[in-house]
């Protein structure tokens, strides 16, 4: 039951913390590091509420061992403002793209990763990019509209 040291970058800041034996990245970020923005929804990689970026790729943090991010860059929703709000955050607010807000951090991470690699996605590409993020409140349309608003340059941040 040895604790393992994990050195990584969280939202641009160098961090070091001990991971419990077998601890997943979601628990490590929340309990070990104190970043509460990734959420537990299913623990089995189906809901997307725990989505984070590891070296620019979206990953489900409930399915990743904490020690696997040693030496890597992790981004979460709490790191999106830099320092002003990300245009996606503004667009989500303006388009009523969140109701309960629980899926929102994971949804934003998926949307940010999409726009980073493809700044002008089509509607179909937006839908594909958030297809791993379940939302029970909005019916998705307002989320799609918010992401497209950023892609089409209709949001100032």
């Amino acid at each position, binding site marked *: 039951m040895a604790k393992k040291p994990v050195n990584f970058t969280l939202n641009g800041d160098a961090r070091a913390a001990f991971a419990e034996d*077998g601890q997943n990245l979601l628990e490590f970020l*929340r*309990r070990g590091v*104190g970043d*509460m*923005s*990734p*959420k*537990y*929804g*299913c*623990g*089995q990689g189906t*809901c997307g*509420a725990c989505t984070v970026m590891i070296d620019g790729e979206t990953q489900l943090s409930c399915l990743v061992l904490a020690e696997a991010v040693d030496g890597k860059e992790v981004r*979460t*929703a*709490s790191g*999106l*403002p830099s320092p002003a*709000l990300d245009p*996606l*955050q503004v667009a*989500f*607010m*303006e388009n*009523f793209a*969140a*109701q*309960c*807000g*629980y*899926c*929102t*951090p994971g949804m*934003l991470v998926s949307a940010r990763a999409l726009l980073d690699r493809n700044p002008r996605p089509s509607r179909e590409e937006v839908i594909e990019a958030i297809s791993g993020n*379940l*939302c*029970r*409140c909005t019916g998705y349309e307002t989320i799609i509209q918010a992401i497209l608003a950023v892609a089409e340059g209709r949001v100032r941040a």
Partner: protein
Amino acid sequence: MIEFRKEFFANERDDDLNEIGKPTRRQDILGHVTGRSPFFDDHQFDGLLHLRCVRSPHHHARIRRVDASQAEKMPGVVRVLTGKDVPANLNTLLSLLDFGIDDEPILSDKKVAYRGEPVAAVIAATEAQARAAVKAVRVDWEVLPHVLDVEEAIKPGAPKVLDIYPNNKFVYHGKYDHQKLRFGDVEAAFASADHIVEGRYQMSPIEQAPIETCGAIAAPEQNGRYVCYTSTQALFFSLGTAAKVLQTPSSKLHFVGGTVGGGFGGKVDSIHEPLAILGAMLTGRPVKYAWDREEEMQVGAPRGAERWYIKDAVNRDGRITARKFIGYFDSGAYTRLSSYAIIKGVGHLPGPYTIPNVYADVYCVYTNRTPATAMRGFGITGVDFAIETHMDKVAETVGLNPIELRILNSYRDGDMKAHRREAKNCALVECCQVVAEKAGVTLSAEAKAATSMTGGGGERARIPNYTATDQNGRVEGFDTGSYARKGGGTSPVSASAPPNPQPARAPQPASPPPSAKTPEQAPPRSGPPPQPPGARPAASRSGAMRFSSLAGFRRR
């Protein structure tokens, strides 16, 4: 896209509204998009303990023995709770509104009536340790026959789900084994109808499936108080339930909620708060009790299944002259909110249509399925599905367009509804006309000219001169005045009534913080003593009575 049809009811509106019709921002949206909204599990506690339940693998079984001796010795285990640790180990949610008899243990100690019912709770230092210890609790089961279908459950000789309600049916108003609606004489109308249209409709249970699973974290505060962070969507309901179950004044409980990761009705049952607080009381440490996704789906109470039989008398021109309902709500193993859902549903019958003769017998039936609870319009949506599907069947029978049939039968302002209230502010005719327009359906000139504001009242405003009544389903031995047991048990008086199982004992706080295993030696609680068995509740019942008109207790 929202489209406003301002031409309708223009003279009933000022149109000087500040918010409606304009985009607005949620007040909590900034927290949501920055990941800072404080959901219950986002609160950190040093020394947090984790509570997980030992659950029944059987639909229906008697508990012969629970042996936690192995589990108690496992690494990280602080305590194992069973029913005897819960001060008032029997509750029904709506007892706070004086509606229904306490029927559901917090931790079952005699028998289980659905798969996944909790019989013990393990509190351990980590979630993994709690999971391991749950597997080490040995339960000696005596498996009983079970019943999973509402109509099977009410047949003679069916397995008895609950001891307190006869024939697996909730008792309404202390009098009947179903909720009745009688308006006019349906049988007379059936005898003279051009068509009889019958249908059977069924809905399965639906899980609310919030992305945040249900849970709560409780921790000792100063001055013998406990704080409870919870995902509840009914904070004061959960507070009242916890106070009752823990036999603790609500002033000792500090509830923090309001940030709910999706509820949809699935977070009103107040399952987690009492056990999390009890754990904090008995260990002196913060305790988290949350469902994982599997538990949310298996034991989280869904919208209940419903089965409806509808029989209509219909004239050749499409006018419906009588409608009869026989309805079965699947309450699952315990009452929760199903009894109330039926009250609400029967008030809604026969749907938004003016039908001069209406009859309904609606049963709240217990089965060995997961207990049902609230979900988005529960009590209404199921029967609406049945009614509207049936309307299409009626339209087909008489050869009318289904939209036209609805316009013909819609409530008009001033009509008398089956529950004897006047219909006001009706708008179904106008909605149907817009639907027809959008769907490209051509309506007759008459249907196009119809409005909700004309054609109602007069003869249609009258309560029928004769209403056929009956004593079918009469139940003896239940108190018609109040369901409240209030620690004393005033009802039922039938021989099958269970003894009041409550020990008059509260779990012991906590000043100075207790060690993990001291509650048995703790001093008696300081609150008022429980009332002796048989006593009538002494406290004012104004709160209960205010709601009682809902349940039909108030004489009209």
